């Protein structure tokens, strides 16, 4: 069935928003990567004193991207995605404190842990839809948080897990005090993660997931199992979220209970929708916008920040349903028309 199905899906992709027929595909494909690399390096030179914040933003972008794989491509509304992020972060943190300290191995540990928890919980809860599913994802994340809180000996409970001291990357680049290595390491992981994620969502399985989002009945009629597709994509996204968690643990050196918290899941969703779903690079745009504004506004008064983000969200929903990333698609025709 995959041949027939992916064929059908491929023909459909031409109508999807991310493809712009005006430019050759190789250019549109390379553009996000180039922009990310150039922008990332430019930020490295421009804000040498804010590298800690910038590193957090990069790790969060990877996390939001993994949420996009679930929400944007599969249509699974989840408010418990932090469960995977936190599991990855704690797994990497615990392994780093007790056994190995090679950063790449820690990323792998985080990815495996995130993927496993996503696979286990996804298989359990993805039969549900709508509000029921939303509640189940919240409940799973809350239980993971409660377990992390109770297992004090391993996770440090509410004090957080500290003492993560990663070895140099590839044995060459030591993590320095100014966070330069952390930042560049995170940037590299994000770009590689973006390329791999894009390959995955364009694979037959990724296209089938999009099919499930649009019309689960039809996928079932074609002989596919909607639930199996959703669970596998949920697990893959869990791997990415786990890697993002491990990346945060490695670069910041601590893991707290808030990395599994409800508000972290909700914030990720807000970032994703600000940037625009179903594009992957929208996740990066949304994360950068959200966290940068948060950094500026919340330093004065958290309630100013809430007022601003609340109004901003309502504005996006009412006037720009596709998110910031859809701006170009909306503005370009206007520019062309004016010429």
């Amino acid at each position, binding site marked *: 069935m995959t041949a027939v199905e992916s064929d059908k899906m491929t023909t459909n992709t031409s109508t999807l928003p991310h493809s712009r027929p005006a430019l050759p595909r190789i250019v549109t494909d390379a553009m996000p990567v180039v922009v990310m690399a150039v922008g990332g390096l430019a930020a490295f030179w421009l804000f040498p004193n804010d590298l800690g914040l910038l590193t957090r933003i990069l790790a969060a972008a990877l996390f939001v991207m993994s949420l996009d794989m679930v*929400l944007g491509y599969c249509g699974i*509304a989840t408010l418990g995605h932090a469960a995977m992020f936190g599991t990855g972060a704690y797994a990497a943190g615990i392994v780093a404190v007790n056994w190995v300290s090679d950063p790449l191995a820690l990323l792998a540990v985080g990815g495996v842990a995130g993927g496993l928890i996503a696979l286990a919980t996804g298989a359990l*809860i993805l*039969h*549900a*839809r*709508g*509000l*029921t599913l*939303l*509640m*189940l994802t*919240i*409940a*799973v994340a*809350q*239980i993971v948080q*409660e377990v992390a*809180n*109770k297992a004090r000996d391993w996770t440090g409970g509410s004090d957080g897990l500290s003492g993560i001291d990663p070895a140099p990357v590839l044995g060459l680049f030591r993590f320095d005090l100014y966070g330069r290595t952390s930042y560049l390491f995170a940037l590299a992981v994000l770009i590689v993660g973006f390329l791999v994620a894009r390959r995955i969502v364009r694979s037959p399985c990724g296209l089938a997931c999009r099919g499930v989002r649009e019309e689960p009945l039809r996928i079932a009629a074609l002989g596919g199992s909607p639930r199996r597709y959703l669970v596998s994509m949920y697990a893959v996204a869990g791997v990415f979220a786990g890697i993002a968690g491990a990346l945060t643990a490695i670069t910041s050196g601590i893991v707290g209970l808030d990395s599994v918290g*409800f*508000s972290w899941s*909700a914030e990720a*969703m*807000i970032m994703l*929708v600000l940037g625009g*779903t179903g594009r992957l690079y929208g996740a990066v745009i949304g994360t950068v916008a959200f966290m940068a504004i948060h950094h500026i506004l919340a330093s004065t008064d958290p*309630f*100013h920040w*809430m*007022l601003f*983000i*609340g*109004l*901003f*969200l*309502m504005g*996006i*929903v*009412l006037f720009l*349903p596709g998110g910031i990333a859809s701006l170009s698609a909306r503005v370009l025709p206007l520019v062309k028309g004016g010429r």
Partner: protein
Amino acid sequence: METVFGIAVDGVAYGMILFIISVGLSVTLGLMRVVNLAHGAFAMAAGYVASYAAQTMGLPYGLALVAAVLLTVVATLPLEKLLYRRIYGSANELRQVLLTIGLTFVIVAGINYLFGPTLKRIPLPEMLTGTLDLGPKSIPTHRAFVIGMGAATILALWWLLERTSFGIRLRAAVDDPAMAAALGIRTERLYMATFALGTGLAAMGGVLGAELLPLEPYYAIRYIVLFLAVVAVGGAGSIFGSAAAALTLGVVDTAGKYLIPNFGEFFFYAALILILFRWPHGFFQGRAA
């Protein structure tokens, strides 16, 4: 035995508050298919208004309650017209979640600006502060009052939905909005009235439950998961489902906190997962949300 009795009284009172607030959410979700995350914010706003009316203006408790409910309903009706009407229907789930989260943030910021970040109380009248003797046992009057109000709400809603022409039209619109509109039912007005009903219930629950769910600016975010859980377990649009769900979850949560206080909310969420496994559409087969 004392503990069991205490858990039962507190659990049922807590459940009744959850019911009063959540049933409004359930009705709007059942009819308009809108996941209104700002519902908790409406309850919180009403609590603050009542607190202001009672503490600063010195109104009696009953009057403060009525004033808070009326003011909240009047203040939120324009929101229905301006915001909610654009996102009705189940196709817009994500937009609903985001718009109402945004609205919640704005309300939280506004409440903090107007009333400050400290905990607010609504002083109870003397009538409600003592204890009530029931044969060998006695229970706090406030708990008894809350339980009574909850029971009265269940009965009043049942009467409203089953015995009045408003209820008939509302049920018709829930079952098939297009057909109801074709038959001459003015669904827009019906939506507005239902929204007002839902908000009014949230407001009432927010004021009555101020002792159990303390009023502070993060109330709106902290408890909305609780209210959504009740709706998911009860089944959207079902009154008795909401009541059963609210009482079950209220008693489970209270029992967990009394018996094994170290485990926080663990039991609540574990119960939630188990129940949603057995009844994925809620106790009373609510309409798909």
